[in-house]
């Protein structure tokens, strides 16, 4: 086990993937000598060269579109979108080309492209630098949407995403980049080098994790809100409420089974994400829990998320984002039933 930050773990995972497979390339803005604006690709340009760590023109659609073309010849491009709010010029390439090529070619073409997106807020950034657009992509079939919350998942899942034959959008919680954790660097290497490694990696990436067991309330979180959910659970432990925390890890596919199993146990579900609640991932979870665990529920499924307003200036972001008080408020409300 090694101690790493989330950013360091993703960096180490990228390095391992590039060492394992010479077809893995990184593409993006400022990812070369600078190492990316968050330094996630730090050192890789120096060690692998500009041919494999490519500083691209400043055009997101162009980056994703050319990555698609390169992957058609067997390359495995890992694209960095500099900030969440700048992904929209590439929205068309991602949703109409990347997501659909395998389908429209009836399986003849696979596009193993990974799109890394530093996402979500809480770092005092300017406009368009703190958004959570994952639900916009989860609505499109053909994409896998994942988000690591821990250094271990950052290390494992980036390699699994690269190994997967499907396009994967990899949402990295930028506020958690410098959180540290223990990382086992051997397990995923063994998985990927074994027979059927890409399939088992894709499958593992499609499952949620019970981050803490509990019996009264389930809090479903992913990416930046997992730590928040665990803080709430720890606090409530002393007050006699037992909270189960599910780290979703994957939004598409959604691991309904793990969420529903927990819902049947606790009867109370709260979904916490930074993205606006309206029409979001939480709404999808609420719907699935209602469909599959209706008679086990003691309370309505609640959502704690961003509001249906543009992401505000950073002086207001801690009121806009889910915080401990709002999560505890939601727990109080479900426990009233």
């Amino acid at each position, binding site marked *: 086990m090694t101690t790493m930050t989330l950013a360091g773990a993703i960096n180490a995972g990228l390095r391992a993937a590039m060492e394992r497979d010479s077809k893995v390339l990184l593409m993006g803005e400022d990812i070369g000598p600078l190492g990316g604006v968050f330094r996630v690709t730090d050192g890789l340009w120096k060690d692998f060269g500009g*041919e494999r760590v490519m500083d*691209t*023109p400043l*055009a997101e*659609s*162009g980056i*994703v*579109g*050319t*990555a*698609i*073309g*390169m*992957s*058609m*010849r*067997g*390359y495995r491009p890992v694209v960095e979108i500099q900030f969440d709010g700048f992904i929209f*010029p590439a929205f*068309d*390439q991602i949703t*109409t*080309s990347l997501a*659909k090529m*395998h*389908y*429209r*070619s*009836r*399986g*003849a*073409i*696979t596009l193993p492209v990974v799109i890394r997106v530093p996402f979500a807020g809480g770092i005092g950034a300017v406009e368009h630098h703190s958004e959570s657009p994952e639900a916009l992509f989860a609505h499109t*079939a*053909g994409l*896998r949407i994942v988000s690591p919350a821990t250094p271990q998942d950052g290390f494992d899942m980036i390699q699994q995403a690269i190994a*997967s*034959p*499907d396009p994967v959008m990899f949402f990295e919680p930028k506020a958690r980049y410098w959180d540290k954790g223990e990382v086992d660097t051997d397990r995923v290497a063994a998985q990927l080098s074994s027979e059927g490694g*890409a*399939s088992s990696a*894709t*499958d593992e990436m*499609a499952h949620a994790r019970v981050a803490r067991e509990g019996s009264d309330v389930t809090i479903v979180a992913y990416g930046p809100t997992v730590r928040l959910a665990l803080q709430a659970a720890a606090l409530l432990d002393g007050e006699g409420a037992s909270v189960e925390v599910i780290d979703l890890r994957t939004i*598409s*596919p*959604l*691991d*309904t*089974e793990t969420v529903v199993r927990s819902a049947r146990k606790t009867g109370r579900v709260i979904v916490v994400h930074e993205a606006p609640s309206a029409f979001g991932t939480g709404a999808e979870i609420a719907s699935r829990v209602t469909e599959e665990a209706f008679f086990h529920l003691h309370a309505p499924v609640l959502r704690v998320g961003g509001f249906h307003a543009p992401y505000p200036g950073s002086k207001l972001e801690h009121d806009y984002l889910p915080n401990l008080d709002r999560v505890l408020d939601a727990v109080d409300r479900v426990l009233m039933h």
Partner: protein
Amino acid sequence: MSATGPLSDEGLIRLLDRTGARLEDPFFSQYAKDLTDDDLRRFWREMTLTRAFDNEATSLQRQGELGLWVPALGQEAAQIGSGNAVRKPDFVFPSYREHGVALTRGIDLPVILKMFRGIEHGSWVPSEHSFHLYTLVIGAHTLHATGYAMAMDRDGLVASGKPENDGAVICYFGDGATSQGDVNEALIFAAVNNAPVVFFCQNNQFAISEPTTRQSRVPLADRGKGVGIPSVRVDGNDVIASYAVSNWALQYARSGAGPVLVEAFTYRMGAHTTSDDPTRYRTRADEAYWAERDPIARLTTYMENAGILPDEYREEVAQEAKGLGRRTRELVKTWPAPSKTEMFEHVYAEPHATVDAERAWFERYERSFLEAHS
């Protein structure tokens, strides 16, 4: 028709004029030098077959057998000329009107209609024909073509030292597409990466109803200048010039010299699609002007005058065209509708829980009707 700006015929490379007379070009003639009489007969045959197929497809749409058809009428020279300059290991990215190019890539033309009959979105394996699927999102594929070309370069297929082994990409798009961000980004990415890609713009003068003057105030080939890509305007109704310019452009790209922009100036003689009505936005005089510049008529006149289009050959091709029309008509009606669960196939390469769950539900739902009736 002395148009200016993007509709001018200034600077067009032309090796066959509208009366069917051969012209010389100090630079490009050498790139058509290798054409034999047999080659010209093949061009003539392929243009004739493309048009016959095209007309049959329009009829089938009118008869309700196709949801839509996209005629290439009038663009046969640009397509057959450029398509014949492609060779292994080149790769082609078409837009959605490149039926002539498809023919040169060995696609059995009727298969194209599966898409227009709503059976599936693509009906050939791109790698088998070095011909990507049609792309309906205007200009999106120019970036895929650029990325593909960058990968060919990496794979050692460009400037390898053995020119016969080298390859390049040719990417087709229209005048309307030149306004898309993706096309401009493709030009930039290709330029800075020195990618071996030929951007082949068929300026057929209309983006559905909008004339090219709604897209540009300068000839479209000028778009290459700003990004440092050599650009050529060619008479797209001249199959020999279209071949020569494409031949040069592909050789240039294969040699490692970088991308090229070709603007083939042509005219969409038919409608944009069978849902369109060109009488609302262009005149009969315009159409008559361009009818005199019909690409097939021009080649026919030249070959007749040169004595290289014997009656027996014409008859043979006429019969082949008739046969293709008949086979197309018959084949279209024999294609079974896809099975209902095909919509769940190939959404992902690996299993996906949502797709699996919805498919399982749908299958149960469908079965419930059978059970209700049994």
